[in-house]
């Protein structure tokens, strides 16, 4: 009997392209770990492995070609005037800002409290009706503002957040403290309940929006129109509150950004409607879409099916195809370009019959924001205007943004020849400009130190540090600050991810933490 010849062993190709080696953290113990960035089936994934807790993988960008081509929008960072910490253990353990950080703070966030008049099923801050949280004092607020000014010199925007900042009894004083400093704009991040029910309070905000050289803008949580959306994301049907809050803001002359937390399977079908509603409401000048940050409290999710910026942009375009097409949104150069994409629209006509002109269709914005290949552009003024608009500090309603929108439109001038005085004409454009922001904040699953090191949105802590927002929510800084401020121990938060379900338990605030009983729960 003859022996069959064994089939020759064949080498197989990998099903993915390895594009980067980086660092992340273990989503369970938050220990820094090596990570890779791989492209598979036109999408970008971040796999990593913790020696103790095993392997994890998350989808980080839904369009591989755009992920790679966005590298050219990476603007050289600006060095802040001061750093608050030293380099000791390496990123992301030295926040912040440490001297290794690549960018100054375009936006500073002050969380004034942990308490809230809602208990949303989705809340990265793990806030709610809790008796063991904290509220900051006048002195703490001043120290936080001073730390921001020391780092920035003249700061563009500070955002008051929480918890729910409008229920802090000194919130108006805090706005005054900010306006007394070289901080041009204040943003108030709110669920809108107080704005809907306390017109006197809204009027006081409106008055502060009239201070010369200063503005107050409202950043209003606004996730959609379906009752289910409200119940699943906020735990309560707030539709009439939102409407009343917006009408009160319009009456008080306040500019509003609608901010939608977008979760797969919950409200991803409402993005076009939110945009159109915003365009139609007189108080609203911008919409921000944020895929839910899977940090703090949130519904169970699949890290491989989460929403990323390109997914959100595709949904917006698919839901309003007459208004948007591919290429209308562009990455923001000040932070890492894959973190945030923006477009500006010029809007005309009546509700239901709108002319919508995305600014990137008027001129080749991507040529001006290309910092790697186009170092010289014939008109430096246009680049300067566009980079102020494509920035994390750009909020419609601020003087800087209005001025740069004007400068951009003026760049299209042809006064001498065709007899149309465009600059004069665009002076009336201000209330026709509308901004859409898509921002994917990082969480313990998606954190990439490469992006984190250039983050330009910072949480200002009561002890005067500036901690990158995504480090604050992912690495454990939020829990540390809350424990220090409240004197109550806070469990390290773990993402409520499907693959981790058997290893998690619920914290007193509703978020998840790693099961005790093993040595997994380390300080």
């Amino acid at each position, binding site marked *: 009997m003859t022996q069959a010849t064994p089939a020759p062993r064949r080498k197989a190709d990998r099903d993915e392209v390895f594009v980067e080696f980086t660092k992340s953290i273990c989503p369970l113990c938050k220990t820094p770990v090596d990570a890779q960035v791989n492209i598979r089936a036109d999408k970008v994934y971040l796999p990593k492995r913790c020696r103790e807790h095993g392997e994890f993988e998350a989808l980080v960008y839904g369009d591989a070609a755009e992920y790679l081509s966005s590298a050219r929008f990476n603007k050289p960072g600006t060095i802040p005037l001061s750093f608050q910490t030293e380099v000791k253990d390496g990123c992301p353990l030295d926040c912040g800002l440490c001297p290794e950080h690549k960018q100054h703070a375009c936006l500073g966030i002050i969380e004034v409290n942990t308490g809230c008049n809602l208990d949303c099923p989705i809340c990265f801050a793990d806030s709610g009706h809790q008796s063991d949280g904290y509220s900051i004092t006048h002195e703490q607020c001043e120290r936080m503002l001073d730390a921001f000014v020391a780092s920035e010199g003249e700061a563009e925007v500070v955002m008051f957040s929480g918890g729910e900042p409008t229920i802090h009894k000194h919130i108006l004083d805090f706005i005054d403290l900010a306006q007394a400093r070289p901080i041009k704009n204040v943003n108030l991040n709110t669920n809108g309940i107080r704005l809907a029910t306390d017109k006197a309070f809204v009027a006081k905000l409106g008055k502060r929006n009239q201070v010369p050289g200063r503005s107050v803008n409202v950043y209003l949580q606004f996730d959609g129109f379906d009752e289910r959306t409200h119940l699943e994301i906020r735990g309560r049907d707030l539709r009439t509150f939102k409407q009343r809050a917006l009408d009160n803001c319009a009456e008080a002359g306040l500019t509003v950004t609608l901010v939608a937390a977008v979760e797969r399977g919950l409200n991803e079908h409402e993005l076009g409607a939110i945009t159109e509603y915003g365009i139609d409401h007189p108080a609203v000048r911008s919409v921000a879409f944020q895929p839910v940050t899977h940090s703090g409290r949130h519904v169970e999710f699949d890290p491989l099916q989460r929403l990323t910026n390109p997914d959100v942009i595709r949904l917006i375009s698919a839901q309003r195809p007459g208004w948007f*097409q591919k*290429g209308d949104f562009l990455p923001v150069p000040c932070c890492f370009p894959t973190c945030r994409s923006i477009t500006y629209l*010029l809007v*005309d006509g009546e509700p239901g019959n709108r*002319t919508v*002109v*995305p600014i990137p*269709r*008027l*001129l*080749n914005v*991507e*040529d001006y924001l*290309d910092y790697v*290949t*186009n*170092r*010289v*552009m*014939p*008109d*430096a003024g246009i680049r300067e205007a566009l980079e102020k608009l494509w920035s994390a500090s750009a909020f419609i309603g601020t003087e800087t943004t209005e001025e740069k929108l004007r400068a951009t*439109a003026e760049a*299209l*001038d*042809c006064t*001498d*020849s*065709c*007899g*149309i*005085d*465009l600059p004069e*004409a*665009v002076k*009336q*454009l201000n209330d*026709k400009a509308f901004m859409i922001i898509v921002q994917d904040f990082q969480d313990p699953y998606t954190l990439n130190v490469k992006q984190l090191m250039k983050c330009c949105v910072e949480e200002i802590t009561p002890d005067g540090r500036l901690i990158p927002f995504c480090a604050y929510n992912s690495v454990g800084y939020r829990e540390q600050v809350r424990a220090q401020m409240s004197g109550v121990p806070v469990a390290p938060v773990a993402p409520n991810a499907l693959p981790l379900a058997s290893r998690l338990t619920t914290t007193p605030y509703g978020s998840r933490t790693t099961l005790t009983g093993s040595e997994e729960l380390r300080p």
Partner: protein
Amino acid sequence: MTHEEIKSCCADAYSRDIVAMLLGDSYHPGGTALTRRLADRLALAPGMRVLDVASGRGTTALLLADAYRVRADGIDYAPANTALAQGAAQAAGLADRAVFTTGDAEHLPYENAVFNAVVCECALCTFPDKHQAAGEFARVLEPGGRLGITDVTADTDRLPPELRGLSARTACIADARPAEEYAEILAAAGLRVLTLERHDQAMIRMIDQIQARLSLLRITAPARLAEAGMDLDAAPAVLDAARAAVTDGVLGYALLTAVKSPAERPGDLPPGA
């Protein structure tokens, strides 16, 4: 209209008219990404002397001088553009490497064989005597020097009536040729075509841009726009026809490179033989 009048009209249109406003002086389909692709195809190297024909506000010449470190000469028919481009070169600190002159593409004010490369973006389609212009490109190129062109392509016989009926503003585009005809024109001037690529998506982008700019004018200055002779109601149909023409392959945008044959004498061996 004489050729001189047409050239002057086109240069005028591109420097002052509403077309400049709608298309943008420094704009051509494909933007700087396509310019870089063209430069890469030409294998530009530091120190080379490069001519940009119809240089507009200097975007292409400045990019080449900066990113490819060549010595760039720009020539444009409109004095206003020359001044703007020169100013931009100074502002960018590139005045020693980028020089701009006013002149005629069909009578280039340069000696024979002085350039290592010649580029011409979105302009050959506007030149009334394309053979004459191509002959001039060949004349100023050194033997073995390369020409790079990006331009509107049009199969004029198949253009829909909406596009043929456009007034003098876009008559420039109506004189565009199929890509193969550009190649023949170059070949007739002794320029052997090396690459011919289609970039029709860039044309769609330009049409979108014209539409967006018309909408902007409609928002900001409808009365003045009508005074300037723009028929706003007709515009969408024309732009839709243009998009359809691109889809049908009648209208498009192409990138061509060609090489000037080394000085040929009977009996010369091809290089490398």
